[in-house]
């Protein structure tokens, strides 16, 4: 489980960095929806299937489809929009500040003792609504909706050009 979440963490950081590297707005939107999807998968592996389904439906089903139809279908724009050196320096500085605050203020140790004392955090509420098949069906439906929206973009461009 830890290995899976580590792989997902690496993927989500790569996906969030690709937003600033890619040049096409459509590719950027696909990368952002990949970030949403991996975030939902992390929720699922943290034993919260209902919240993972809500996250999946809101983010992929609503936000990404609206983003595709509204923004990526309108026009493409190609210019170099991100200063990579400023991005790297600012990201590392802010992350170092926040991580230092987490460890130096004793918050990490307090959270660790809190988790150690609370032994019931793995006990989860699994109702009939959140069985495995329902979750799998939700993921399948959302993936189909995502692919339909992705495939509708050339059609929309043809319609708007003529």
């Amino acid at each position, binding site marked *: 489980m830890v290995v899976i979440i580590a792989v997902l963490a690496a993927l989500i950081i790569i996906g969030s960095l690709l937003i600033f590297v890619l040049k096409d707005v459509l590719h950027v939107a696909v990368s952002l929806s990949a970030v949403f999807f991996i975030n939902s998968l992390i929720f699922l592996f943290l034993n919260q299937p209902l919240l993972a389904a809500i996250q999946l439906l809101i983010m992929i089903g609503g936000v990404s489809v609206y983003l595709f139809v509204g923004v990526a279908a309108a026009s493409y724009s190609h210019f170099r929009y991100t200063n990579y050196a400023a991005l790297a320096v600012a990201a590392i500085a802010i992350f170092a500040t926040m991580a230092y605050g*987490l460890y130096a203020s004793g918050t990490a140790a307090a959270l660790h003792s809190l988790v150690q004392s609370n032994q019931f955090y793995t006990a989860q509420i699994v109702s009939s609504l959140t069985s495995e098949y329902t979750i799998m069906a939700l993921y399948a439906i959302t993936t189909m909706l995502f692919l339909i929206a992705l495939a509708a973009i050339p059609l929309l461009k043809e319609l708007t050009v003529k």
Partner: protein
Amino acid sequence: MLEYLLLLAFALFSIGIAGVLASRHFVVIVLAVEIIIVSSSLAAMSLYSYTSTGAILPLLFVIWAIAAVDVIALVVFYRYLAKFKVSMDVTKLNRLRD
């Protein structure tokens, strides 16, 4: 495990803030704000999952509402800018005053 999840959320948050600071494209700035929203959702979710504090759940719903409203505002402003053929470069947005 909780600390590493919080560190992951911090990394996403710092990438989002740095993207807002370092980008010039209008859409990419709003999408960096979306990364910040994802990171806050991840932090709230990991705290809820490891400490079973029910008071975090309304925060999650507020975060999702903000994410939805954010993208709707992005689409409205994008169509406005594209209609009047204003550049997507935010350093040139003072053309809107004319």
